[in-house]
């Protein structure tokens, strides 16, 4: 392997080692069966080559034992691969609790990212080594896909919903960020870099420059600007539900049924309020579709999530330092 002609991607995340382990196991399985089948084909076709046009070999009746053997052995190998892949997939879909949170909005043809401390980046993401980073992805237009080969992770950014992915870089460096879902003309230019830094360097980077507005603060401002506060009051006297402690709770809906107030639910309730009405309230909220940008929605969500009583809000904000 010399530079300029790599045959294997860099391993730069905690997940990469596990994925590569399964990859090499499968390469071995593939090579084994390819060699075995090819060898058998060549051996038989030489050993039993036609020596005269008048050869009419005796029939061999099938063998149930063989059929069972070459059904059950591949099945067992498949069970192992399935379980291995599933375990990896579970760990990819379970971000650690202490992860740094970053929101990502895909837009033709750029990646817009924002740290919970407020720093915005475009087509670049600075992260510290040795610390899990959780991304919440969405898109302003078509489906994109956030792909970092060196980390062996990929997730679609789908308009109208939030997908979550996470990774933890293991060594400092600059790594490719690709859009992996075809999104139109400049799809192959929708690329960027993940810049993994030593924790101390990352601290310097994130504290450099003027202190930006955090998403929670931006959300609070937007909450006031859009006059959400007139209905969603803190004291349960408003015409809309109280938002304090709402995020993550289970909501009773009009006409029976419940919904978990996750990001996707909150987003829908802002943009398409009539979709799910909370029990005990009138469907009077106007839609905010088109009035608030994807980033704006993310800020509102950050603000609503911070409304978990004073202690909870402080904890959430402090957790991202």
């Amino acid at each position, binding site marked *: 392997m010399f*530079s*300029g002609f*790599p*045959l*294997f*991607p860099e391993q730069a995340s905690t997940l990469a080692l596990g*994925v590569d382990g399964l*990859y090499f196991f*499968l390469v071995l*399985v*593939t090579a084994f*069966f390819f060699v075995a*089948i090819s060898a*058998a084909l060549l051996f*038989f*076709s030489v050993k*039993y*080559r*036609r*020596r005269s046009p*008048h*050869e*009419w070999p*005796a029939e*061999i009746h*099938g063998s149930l034992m063989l*059929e069972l053997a070459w*059904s059950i052995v*591949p099945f067992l190998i*498949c*069970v192992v*691969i*399935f379980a*291995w*892949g*599933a375990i*990896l*997939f*579970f760990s990819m879909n379970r971000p650690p609790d202490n992860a740094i949170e970053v929101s990502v909005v895909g837009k033709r043809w750029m990646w817009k990212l924002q740290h919970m401390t407020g720093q915005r980046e475009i087509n670049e993401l600075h992260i510290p080594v040795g610390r899990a980073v959780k991304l919440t992805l969405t898109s302003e237009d*078509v*489906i994109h*896909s956030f*792909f970092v*080969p060196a980390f*062996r992770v*990929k*997730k*679609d950014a*789908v*308009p*109208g919903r939030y997908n979550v992915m996470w990774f933890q870089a293991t060594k400092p460096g600059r790594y490719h960020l690709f859009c*992996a*879902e*075809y999104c139109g*003309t*400049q*799809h*192959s*230019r929708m690329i960027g870099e993940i810049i993994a830094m030593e924790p101390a360097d990352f601290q310097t980077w994130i504290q450099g420059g003027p202190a930006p507005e955090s998403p929670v603060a931006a959300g609070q401002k937007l909450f006031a600007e859009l006059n959400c506060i007139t209905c969603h009051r803190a004291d349960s006297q408003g015409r809309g539900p109280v938002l304090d402690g709402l995020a993550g709770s289970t909501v009773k809906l009009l006409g029976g049924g419940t919904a978990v107030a996750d990001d996707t639910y909150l987003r829908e309730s802002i943009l*398409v309020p009539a979709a799910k009405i909370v029990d005990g309230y009138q469907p009077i909220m106007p839609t905010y579709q088109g009035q608030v940008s994807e980033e704006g929605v993310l800020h509102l969500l950050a603000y609503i999530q911070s409304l978990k009583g004073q202690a909870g809000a402080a904890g959430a904000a402090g957790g991202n330092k």
Partner: protein
Amino acid sequence: MSAVVAAREPQLPKEHYLNADYGVRSWLFTIDHKRIALLYLASVTFMFFLGGMYAAAIRLELVTPPGDMFSSETYNKLFTGHGVLMVFFFLIPTIPGVLGNFLIPLMIGAKDLAFPRINLLSWYCYMAGAGFVLYALVEGGLDTGWTFYTPYSTSFSNTNVILAGVGIFFAGFSSILTGLNFIVTIHKMRAPGLTWFRLPLFVWAHYATSLIQILGTPVIAVTILLVALERGFHFGFFDPARGGDPILFQHLFWFYSHPAVYIMILPAMGVISELVACFSRKKIFGYGFVAGSSLAIAVLGFLVWAHHMFVSGLSVYASLIFSAISFLVAIPSAIKVFNWTATLYRGSVSWQTPMLYAVGFIGLFVIGGLTGLFLAALGLDVHVTDTYFIVAHFHYVMVGSVVMAYMGGLHFWWPKITGRHYPEWWARVSAVIIFVGFNLTFFPQFILGYLGMPRRYHYYPDEFQVLNVMSSAGASILAVGYMIPMVYFAWSMRYGRIATANPWPATGLEWQTASPPPTENFAVTPTVDEEVYDYTRPPKEPTFV
């Protein structure tokens, strides 16, 4: 006996389906399944070379990292055109349309398919679809990728989505009608004595394929209709800005388009079974298991579609189920490969061109199939999906396997179709060229994919160049490999050595009538009193000439 036959120079029969009538009308209004097969042969060959030209342009552009030959708009139209032409107008219709059409009535001892006029209608549907799509490609093009993902296709693309959709809609009806025709024919028109377990595996494979065509294709038709309604009339099925769900489109699309892979590969597997039996002079080992595995693939193939969507945000538990069933569908494919290999054991193996293709098929299908396991494994799919790894995988299955089988079948039945032999030496050489060119084109793409090069990329980082150059070099070899048969097939129609009724010789009713067969296929209704693939003694002299 054969010395006597060899001493007598074979002659073409006085009257056969090719000289039964002359003129354009006799072809365009024919209801003879053999002539319709040749209509398909001409049209799919045209589409294959057209699609190949798109591929050549793509590979040429990818020789250098920056997109310096075409604009990105053009590049996107190139890979879309390549995909649409090859998938919907070559891979899906080819083996059923050409070989299935020609051979199924002959193999079961029938005069024609059950509905000869509907068979002709199938071809016209195909041609109408091809007309719409070619017009869409020429007149502005299409840039959605062959997958038409929403909301890009419904709300963002400025190209001919609806027009191309109409074309695919028509091609779909062609596919449905062909499937319907095959199923009825296989059920109702088998010759006396030809029980289900005496059917050639080619017929079993087409039966399984037809089930998928009938059950799956209507779903893609409905999906295209929804896309057209959303694009043309702003319905909100898929675009979240109108309250729709873009992921719903992916479910609907893959519910057809994954089984569509089996519409391509099952008939190819049927061809391989015929070739392996004939050139090893052996009944296919585990005949019942090979036949049953076609049906198992057809059924299980409908339950794996969401394995295309593991990074779309599908729930973890749904992903688990689709991953598990995807592994299950690997088992019947493995059973086939092992049985084909075992068929050679104690056989009498001869390495004529069709057998070269058959052995090439098995080798490439093993790689294509096993790399499918990489993609079924959830945690590994996350990294390789939407990269060149997947491009390499499906080309190993669709080109390495399906096209190899089609070429093998075309050579095998060429003496039956035309009454003449192709030149054996040239055919062997081009089979080897295709095998080498294919591997050089697509093997580097596995490595590129694992390195992380996304598919559908016009510009790519410098470090991927060496592998891309290798791939493009392979593509040029592959192109030569496909040109040579074009030339010698055309040459052999007039100048090839005249074939006997059963030149290989092989079992099966299609070899029991003249080469080329008469319009009514058999002079007398055939009866069958022997088991399938009985190669323990010389096949009997053609009796139904």
